[in-house]
């Protein structure tokens, strides 16, 4: 079991590396897709079954497609400028490594001091179907944020259509 998870994590991180470093933005976005898939698997193993499905539908079916679209609409076929990494990469590299290190260290330290769930509870949590729970939570205690998100989505949709409309 853990092997699949490990593979997924490796896939995630590896394709994220490609996203970060590949000069061709199209490749970057294709590997972003893999990252998303990997994250979906990680979700699955974290007991978030519905979330995993949603991750695929939204990111792969939505966001990635959108990004690919945007790339193809803006980088027209015969003047491809896909290689677009900056020359100065040292500072960003240092910064991001520093972030990773500090962040992980902080979290790690913090987690070490926190009480965690027992393995049995973890097992039980993982095997419980979450769809119904999430549905009740969304329409129950999280109703307000849910509605807010709805309005946000509507606004984003209208705004996007308005922005992208032909003159």
């Amino acid at each position: 079991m853990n092997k699949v998870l490990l593979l997924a994590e490796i896939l995630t991180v590896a394709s994220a590396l490609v996203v970060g470093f590949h000069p061709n933005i199209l490749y970057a976005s294709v590997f972003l897709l893999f990252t998303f898939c990997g994250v979906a698997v990680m979700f699955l193993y974290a007991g978030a079954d519905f979330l995993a499905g949603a991750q695929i539908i939204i990111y792969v079916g939505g966001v990635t497609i959108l990004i690919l679209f945007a790339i193809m609409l803006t980088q027209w076929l015969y003047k491809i400028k896909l290689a677009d990494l900056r020359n100065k990469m040292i500072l960003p590299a240092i910064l991001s490594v520093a972030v990773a290190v500090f962040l992980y260290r902080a979290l790690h330290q913090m987690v070490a001091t926190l009480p965690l769930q027992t393995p049995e509870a973890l097992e039980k949590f993982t095997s419980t179907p979450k769809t119904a729970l999430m549905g009740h939570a969304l329409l129950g205690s999280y109703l307000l944020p849910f509605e807010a998100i709805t309005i946000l989505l509507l606004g984003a949709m209208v705004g996007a259509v308005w922005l992208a409309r032909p003159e």
Partner: protein
Amino acid sequence: MAQQALLIALFPLCAFVIQALFGKKLPRHGDFVSVLAIFGSFVVAVPIFTKLLTQGHVFETFQVTWMALPGVEASGKLNSAANIVIGVLINNLTAIMLIMVTLCASLIHLFSVGYMHGEERYHLFFAYISLFSAGMLGLVLSDNLLTFFMCWELMGLCSYLLIGFYYKKPSAINASIKAFMTTRVGDTMFFLGIAALYYVFGTSNFMELYKALQQGAGHDVMIAGFPALTFIGFMVLMGTIGKSAQFPLHVWLPDAMEGPTPVSALIHAATMVAAGVFLLIRMFPLLEASHTILPIVAYIGAITAFLAALIAIVQVDIKKVLAYSTISQLGYMVMGVGVGAFAPGFMHLITHACFKACLFLCSGSVIHSVHTQDMREMGGLKSKMPITFATMFIATLAISGVPGFSGFVSKDRILGGALAYSMEHQGHYLIPLLGFATAGITAFYMFRMIYMTFFGHARDEHKHHHAHEQPVTMTIPLMILACLSFAIVFAGPTGIESIDHMMPVKWFDHALEGAQHEMGIAEHLSPEAEAIHHHAHGLALILSLAVAGLGIFISSITYLKHILKAETLKKMAGPVYPLLWNKYFFDEFYIGILIQKGLLKFNHFLAVFDDKVIDRICVDGWRDITMGVKSIIGRFDDVVVDRIMVDGTADVTAGGGWVLRQFQTGKVQHYLVLTVMVIIVALFYANLGLK
């Protein structure tokens, strides 16, 4: 009956509405609507009159609350004391006025059908004249001064509209506005009188007024420094002066002849101008109560009668002659009221209405026939227009005071009253003097008119050739009105018993006695006064016959026989002739000096004052002051506060800003780098905090 009597005024009013809205689309442009309406009024008025004839007295009232104005008493309760109540009053005066007005109006309507045929705004003419009839009849029916005034003004409007009927003629519209404005001077004062009456008596109802006066109310009230009754009386008199074209507001009536002739006949001879006299008669108790007003009334009437008669001598326009004669005759009536002979005054009102309407219609007939109003272009029409001539001659005889005709009866009684008045009140000899002189002059100029129009040879062959008698719809009214010019119709005491006894019925006098009784002025003369009156009336009869005969005689030798040349008379008059020709320069004074030199200049000055002084200086001046202060403070502000203090701060800030702006590249990623650095610092400190 009082409620039904309202129909008399409502018929013409409905006719007006129909005519004004749909007249143009009706067959014959709807003239039949107006004619039928006024005949309907006549038909309704007849039973009232017959009741008067048979019973000798009518009295009916009918009242409604028109405006409810809740007032508050000291206790806080609402009351209706301030309500305005209007209604109908039918008494003897009303009955006689009604029959006279409806009859004259009906005949004149009928005449108009022929006279106005083919005019451009035919339907509007009938609309206006219907409205006028409604106004006049409403005025007669009113039992209070407020509706009286409303109808009064409504008539003024119709007069304005009808004088200006030929609105493309500048002279006509000038005349119309002159008529309206001149009468409105009187009207405004009249309205103040009504307001004062309201203040003093709390009502404007005639009957209540009479009652209050009998109880002696109003004697101790002062208004604007005058005794209230005098104030009211004077204001009412001013109304009459305006409406009945009395001196000094008589100037509009001759000009009003610019209107169509039927209008002159109806409005400016028979009814509206007489309404002023009717007002005086209605208000007679009040005038009498104030003591100071009646002499003024008498003098105004006498002066008007005399001055107007003089002007009439020199007029060559047939309608102008009649117009001045109207003013003169109205002067008689006013004089009659002023000397206390209000019954003869009222009688003269009625008789004058009939014969003057007849005269105007005859002149209309003549004008319609020869297409000119200038008597110098007429002459010798006697044979061409026999009916017109006959009827006009009868009316002339009536106005000249020839015995046997109605004018003689009424005029003679007024003159008798005047003579009696001067005998009773020493020093007022001018009143009968002017009265008798006027009687002679009247006979003179009326016969002058007849001679110039109908006798002699034709002065304008062309016009004479085309002259012809009028159709029957126009001659019938002439004949009816001529019939009414006979004395027999108004048979009443002439002051000479032998003649009085010959009269079969004394309905008019009975009716007026009743009216006097209602007003509370049915005084019984003392034996001495009775004697004086007898004496005066006898004397007046002789004198009036003499002056009338003299007038006719001079007229005949001058204009019929040409023994005396008119030119000679003119030379004899000397400077008087130009004075008369220019109507004593009243118009020049009013228009040239009062209005153009005075009012308009003042207006212009005030408008400029408003624009330049109040607006530019007082109002916009603040702007200039503000601007001045602004520039001073602004300079200070600019240099010291702004440049040094404020901009100094700004410079410092700007310097700092320049430094910071170097980070502000507008490039997203630069910002992100900074953000991430901050995150790292935060995380770094978070890490430091960890054990």
